[in-house]
């Protein structure tokens, strides 16, 4: 009886073992096989070197530099982790807590190396290898470097690990540790810049030592990109803006090539590479991350007047000889609309030269909001310029229909009055405004701006223009008026006359909540325009400062013989 019990105990013991073996080896066999593989098969990613970004003079403004990460294998250091980290911190002169934090954050598999110290230079790394020997593993890694971070931040953007938006990127063949451009040229031309990552598939033992080689894929370097931007002009523009919030754009009037596109305040994209001070940038109420040239819209103020002039002349209700009397204000029913001065009798030329509001109130009413709205749209003020940068915003051109649809209130004459001096609902990005103004420089063509000059050795052909169908005779008096603003003693931008660059331009003081924005738009030389400049300064008070900044900027360029 007792022996039968014992026999059953033995039998059930053996059966339990057989069932367990069946469960682990047959039912879950593939799972454990995979886990076993994860132990010993490792992919050593070989990052591709990202293409370099050059300016038009082939000065590098973004490139990859080799740096080294120090990695450890968790299984190897389990008992001496704390003391090792202390020694590493001492050797590399960094915070031991940071090492611990990196270790905890990046640890995946106990046999996979974990980067604990990132971005060491070559000499230091070699010395560390001598001192610590096999305990540490050197992980070479290309790192993006922006020698002129602040100046080019908004044009270039930066790179980050693809892991943050992997869900979307996976289908484009990105791996989590790969770098992807974000914002600016880095994002827009990422497909060219990124190259192809490769990797070694190796076998390692429990100590992380390589014991076998299974295969490899060579990384391929990304393509170099050459921009239309001139590093010298960009730097001068950045300096000219000083600490003001604002934008300076300089472009080739004929082709639409952007020579400078600066937005301030700016940030250092290198911070994103290092992962430092980022929260501060997001929290900053001046919003340094926004490219004010293309991602923010502002009221145009008087810089809209040339377009109102076209609308008026085209309507044939007004000619360039028509005059209106400016008494310093304009009465519409009970409302009073101001002008800056008492200009008395003014024709188109005078009105553009002096930026007389009363003149434009009058022709605005005569022309009608519908026609002005149509012309504003023709000049592209409500559609993106299609510049080769991501996240471009577009402006808003109001019309009676738009207002009743969106604000549920009818368009009144007061709206037309405001509209005709670029106030009210009308807003655009500085770049849209610059491109619209450039129509006067090209003699009736709306261009698409672009930044790409060539990829590796292939020249880019991005220039595109649309003929707006404006009669040459209509353009001429307006251009003269714009020239008048600079050459006339009492012109609004007379200061620029000192430069002898034959500038024609238009100032603008756009009222907004808080202090007014200052604008200056211009092109030069007047006879055969080569450059178009746009200076915008947020809440600076008046156009006076925009003119002054433009003056300093162009004077600098002239002194350096860049123009």
């Amino acid at each position, binding site marked *: 009886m*007792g*022996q039968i*019990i*014992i*026999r059953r*105990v*033995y039998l059930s*013991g*053996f059966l*339990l*073992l*057989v069932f*367990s*073996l*069946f469960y*682990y*080896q*047959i039912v*879950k*066999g*593939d*799972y*454990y*096989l995979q*886990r*076993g*593989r994860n*132990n*010993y098969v490792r992919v050593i990613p070989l990052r591709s070197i990202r293409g370099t970004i050059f300016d038009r003079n082939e000065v590098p403004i973004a490139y990859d530099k080799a740096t080294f990460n120090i990695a450890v294998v*968790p*299984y190897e250091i*389990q008992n001496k982790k704390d003391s090792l980290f202390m020694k590493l911190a001492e050797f590399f002169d960094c915070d031991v807590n940071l090492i611990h934090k990196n270790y905890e954050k990046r640890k995946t598999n*106990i*046999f996979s190396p974990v980067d604990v110290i990132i971005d060491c230079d070559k000499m230091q790394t070699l010395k560390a290898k001598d001192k610590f020997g096999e305990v540490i593993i050197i992980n070479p890694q290309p790192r993006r470097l922006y020698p002129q971070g602040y100046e080019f931040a908004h044009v270039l953007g930066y790179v980050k690990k693809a892991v943050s938006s992997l869900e979307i990127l996976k289908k484009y063949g990105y791996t989590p540790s790969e770098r992807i451009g974000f914002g600016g040229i880095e994002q827009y031309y990422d497909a060219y810049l990124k190259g192809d990552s490769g990797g070694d598939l190796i*076998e*390692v*033992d*429990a*100590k992380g030592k390589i*014991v076998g080689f299974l295969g490899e894929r060579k990384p391929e370097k990304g393509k170099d990109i050459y921009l239309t931007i001139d590093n010298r002009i960009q730097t001068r523009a950045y300096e000219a803006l000083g600490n003001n919030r604002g934008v300076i754009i300089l472009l080739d009037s004929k082709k639409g090539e952007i020579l400078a596109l600066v937005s301030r305040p700016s940030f250092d994209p290198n911070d994103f590479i290092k992962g430092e001070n980022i929260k501060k940038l997001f929290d900053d109420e001046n919003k340094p991350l926004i490219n004010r040239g293309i991602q923010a819209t502002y009221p145009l103020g008087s810089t809209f007047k040339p377009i109102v002039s076209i609308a008026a002349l085209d309507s044939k209700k007004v000619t360039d000889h028509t005059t209106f009397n400016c008494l310093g204000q304009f009465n519409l029913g009970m409302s009073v609309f101001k002008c800056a001065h008492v200009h008395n009798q003014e024709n188109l030329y005078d009105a553009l030269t002096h930026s007389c509001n009363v003149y434009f109130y009058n022709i605005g009413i005569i022309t009608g909001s519908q026609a002005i709205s149509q012309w504003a749209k023709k000049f592209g003020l409500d559609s993106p310029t299609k510049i080769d940068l991501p996240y471009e915003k577009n402006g808003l051109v109001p019309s009676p229909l738009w207002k009743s649809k969106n604000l549920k209130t009818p368009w009144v004459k007061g709206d037309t009055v405001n509209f005709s001096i670029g106030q009210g609902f009308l807003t655009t990005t500085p770049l849209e405004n610059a491109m619209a103004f450039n129509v006067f420089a090209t003699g009736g063509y709306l261009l698409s701006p672009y930044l790409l000059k060539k990829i590796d050795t292939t020249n880019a052909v991005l220039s595109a223009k649309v003929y707006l169908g404006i009669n040459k005779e209509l353009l001429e008096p307006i251009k003269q008026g714009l020239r008048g603003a600079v050459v006339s003693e009492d012109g609004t931008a007379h200061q620029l006359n000192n430069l002898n660059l034959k500038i024609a331009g238009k100032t603008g003081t756009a009222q907004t909540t808080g202090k007014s924005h200052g604008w200056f738009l211009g092109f030069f030389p007047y006879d055969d325009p080569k450059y178009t400049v746009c200076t915008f300064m947020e809440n600076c008070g008046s156009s006076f400062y925009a003119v002054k900044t433009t003056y300093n900027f162009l004077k600098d360029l002239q002194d350096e013989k860049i123009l």
Partner: protein
Amino acid sequence: MFFNLSNIKSNPAKVIIICLLFLNILSLTIVYSSLHQRGELKNPDIFYKQLTWIMISWVILIMVSLMNYRLYFDFSSILYIVNICLLLTVYFFGKTTMGAQRWLAIGAFTFQPSELSKITTIFILARFFSSSDRKYFIKGFILPLSLVLLNAFIIFKQPDLGTAVVLVILFLMMGISSKIRKRCFVFLLVSGLLLIPFAGHYLKDYQKKRLIVFLNPNVDPLGAGYTIIQSKIAIGSGKLVGKGFLSGTQNQFNFLPERHTDFIFTIVAEEWGFLGSIFLLLIYWLIIKLILDRTKEMRDPFARCLSVGICSYLFIHIFVNIGMTLGILPVVGIPLIFLSYGGTNLVVSFILVGVFLNICRNT
């Protein structure tokens, strides 16, 4: 088949010897594989030591099988006392390895008296159980229980929880199959199980850790849970036919510690797969079954008790060791008999088989 079944039943000795020879070859093969790393043999002396131990064991087996088993009835008390003295010697003068005082050095050899306890316990229990009837409560239950507990306690203090547990289970198994009242053992088993939660207080830190890790290996994947996780990976990844001799990645790339001793089964499972493991279990089962079948025919109660003890000894080692590598039992340091590297256990196992062979000759 080169032997017929009736022949096996009447004379199981030949089959058992064939099984043992086969297990010896398997042991050498697997120890060799466990020492093999990245295409070269590390510590070849371990392989040769094992070979030496196997040869010594066979000599001892032959000697023991020639000694009349009834001798053990008379000498069991003396052997028990000598063993207790040895254990105490170890306790006070023994060699400390890996935090435990288990080894006694004699010349160049070291051996573990705790392994000898398994023999003396089987002998003394066989004596008491065979000479008692169900009426003898003191002589048949209390006295042997106290002797086993004393022995187990000293071993537990070394500390060697595994061997101590083996002794207690031996007591239960041999007791249940004897004529003593079953309810005593059932009561003991139940009360023992109820006391387990309170036993935690007396366990060493590493023993507690092992128990916690047994319940959930992932609490400490780098520390105490490491072995069991890697062991499961090794066994599971063997799948149906295994990765082949010298091709187990867990083994060859050194992901498993202690794989030539307590975790040797993982190599069988990884390199020879489910089929290899089942084949090994079948051999073990064949040995146990042969012993059990023969036991039924024995008329001498002492012989019967002895062979149940031997059988239980084999079963406990197989079940607890493989169970622990599979993670269905906590990790206690028990070797896999006939396969694990280690001289003392091999000799002890062979002595016990020798005793059985002698019983077969004399009955």
